[in-house]
């Protein structure tokens, strides 16, 4: 028998819109607020999200073993955001985010091996060990950015390039609830709206900017409305289909040259802000447990697929086993790959330049730098 697709007809995403005319547009254009999930898509989304989850949990482990050091901001709980966005855009579209970037690095095409080896600072890492957790790049993926909010104007700039080159591509620029108050974000909103840049500004609202809840940081917690003159959509960020459909709508809107759009994805992170934050001093363990049991994005997808006979329990288990292998293999690689060679310390200062000399720690140490 064929398990081909699932057709949702009921109110599948909470569409809170800041412009009444937007509501109307969405109702008429998105086929009665429904989405179609095929079996292939379902399995693919499950596999991708579960891989992200397992990868982050492995990173947690390696960090506690002191094999990963420095900053490590984990994404578990928010997988539906990254997966839904990737499912709603094309590989040729562009994406930029802040430092909680491992999930996006994966959905944008970098292997788990290369991500983990970058976290452990080895030569096989996607940035050859020179970037670390917050500075991973891929084609049409501009990191990984450590300075809160700086990635948003950068994303608007990528969108400008898309418009300039007339390539019908869009840029997704992500930021958190903590960053949402940054002045440069409003500067980006202004220019994007003025010049009708094809930029989708997305606030991943996981309720906490480090240890500060949204109520304590923001005079207005309606982040989807912060764009003021820019239409905004609020979306359930724990439901991968909601995210996907919302992104599709937003991408079409931008591609049609109507200008930017703001989106708020309501989501949740299970870990603290980073590995040095236990994450329970500003919220209760009960709260974390409740989200895990009631709104976990992977569990929700799995249950939907199982209850609609789109996949069997065995199939899901097989995928899990497979993912476990992938993660183990990646972790092994990340642990055993050698560190970057010292003679490459000063490389990559300038692009397409002749080799040059770089001063070492004292005047007698002259190091070589090649592009």
């Amino acid at each position: 028998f064929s398990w081909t697709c699932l057709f949702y007809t009921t109110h599948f995403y909470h569409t809170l819109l800041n412009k009444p005319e937007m509501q109307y547009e969405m109702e008429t254009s998105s086929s009665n607020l429904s989405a179609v999930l095929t079996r292939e898509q379902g399995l693919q989304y499950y596999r991708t999200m579960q891989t992200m989850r397992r990868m982050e949990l492995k990173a947690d482990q390696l960090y506690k073993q002191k094999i990963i050091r420095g900053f490590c901001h984990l994404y578990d709980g928010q997988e539906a955001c990254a997966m839904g966005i990737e499912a709603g855009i094309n590989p040729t579209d562009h994406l930029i985010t802040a430092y909680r970037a491992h999930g996006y690095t994966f959905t944008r095409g970098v292997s788990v091996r290369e991500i983990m080896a970058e976290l452990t600072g080895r030569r096989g890492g996607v940035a050859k060990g020179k970037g670390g957790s917050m500075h991973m790049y891929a084609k049409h993926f501009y990191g990984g950015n450590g300075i809160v909010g700086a990635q948003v104007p950068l994303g608007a700039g990528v969108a400008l390039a898309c418009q300039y080159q007339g390539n019908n591509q869009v840029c997704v620029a992500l930021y958190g609830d903590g960053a949402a108050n940054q002045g440069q974000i409003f500067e980006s909103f202004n220019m994007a709206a003025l010049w009708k840049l094809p930029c989708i500004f997305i606030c991943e609202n996981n309720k906490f900017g480090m240890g500060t809840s949204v109520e304590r940081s923001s005079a207005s917690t309606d982040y989807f409305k912060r764009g003021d003159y820019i239409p905004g959509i609020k979306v359930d960020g724990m439901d991968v289909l909601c995210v996907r459909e919302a992104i599709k709508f937003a991408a079409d809107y931008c591609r049609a040259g109507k200008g930017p759009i703001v989106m708020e994805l309501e989501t949740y992170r299970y870990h603290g802000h980073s590995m040095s934050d236990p994450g329970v001093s500003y919220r209760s363990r009960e709260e974390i447990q409740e989200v895990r049991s009631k709104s976990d994005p992977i569990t929700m997808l799995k249950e939907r697929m199982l209850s609609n006979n789109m996949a069997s329990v065995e199939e899901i288990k097989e995928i899990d086993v497979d993912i476990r292998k992938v993660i183990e293999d990646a972790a092994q690689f990340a642990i055993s790959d050698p560190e970057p060679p010292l003679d490459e310390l000063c490389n990559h200062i300038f692009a397409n330049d002749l080799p040059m000399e770089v001063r070492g720690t004292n005047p007698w140490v002259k190091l070589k730098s090649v592009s």
Partner: protein
Amino acid sequence: MLHCWDGARFPPGGTISIPAKEFNLGFIRPVNSVSHGLRVFTCPLVNVRDALNQAMDEELERDERVFLLGEEVAQYDGAYKVSRGLWKKYGDKRIIDTPITEMGFAGIAVGAAFAGLRPICEFMTWNFSMQAIDQVINSAAKTYYMSAGAQPVPIVFRGPNGSSAGVAAQHSQCFAAWYGHCPGLKVVSPWNSEDARGLLKAAIRDDNPVVFLENELMYGVPFDLSEDVLQKDFVVPIGKAKVERRGTHITLVSHSRCVGFCLDAASVLAKEGVECEVVNLRTIRPLDVDTIEASVMKTGHLVTVEGGWPQYGVGAEICARVMEGPAFNYLDAPAVRVTGVDIPMPYAKILEDHSVPQIKDIIFSVKKVLNM
């Protein structure tokens, strides 16, 4: 009186016919002053502003990925008219007026560079770059390294730097030292029209972030540009200093407007038999230590001259490098810096005049170093 760098003298006024070949060899250069402009019928006088304008025009024409953005660059023709005529010629797509939001538009410019364009981001003055300095350093300068070569950032940030006239403290700071401090950036500081034209072309063609420090008081100063310099592919290599005047007794190292003061001081000192070698840095980072060292090894004496503040400045770096290298053994006296006074820039003319290096300060320092 017009002075030639090799000591010959020409009567004031009138035109002199000089074979183009001889002129191009650089034997004769006008002094940094309109009244001493040497008019040669083969070579036009081009002021720094027009040199910058022509350079941008040619590069915009050459490569359609190049575009200019900044405050008032388009319809206003540029706050200092450096981009005059460009919007009329190239339109809204390539010459973009931005709102007064430096952090935002500098970030947008860097993002456009990430995605394959070649932006020229103008700061109305470099003082305003402080609003956007995070984008220049953390987003532009460091990205190629952090990405291990995956993400180049071909961007030029340009604008007037340093002191102007009567614009007071918040509009008069020199940023050569701050930006010159950072790996991943190239930092250039042209003096004359040839520098401005050649370095701006080189900067735009460079695949890396370039901080281009102009000088407002130099915009209106004309210089002769030879045929070679006016060629469309003329570039001045970034990272190479130029010896503007040969000398044997002492080396003066400078950048931007102060190069002209050094040349003026050299003329005066020549009358007393002191021959100064004047080195025009052209590039702050990477610093051309070889040219500086070769000169110091010849003259045995060093004075650096800059408009910026002394502490942790360009001159401080030059002195440190000379100390650490082979030239130290050739020094007959400690190297010394002539700099702006270590205060925020005052407004009143008499105070402002005494806050920046004057020709007499250079002459005084040279004589001190030479123990005259």
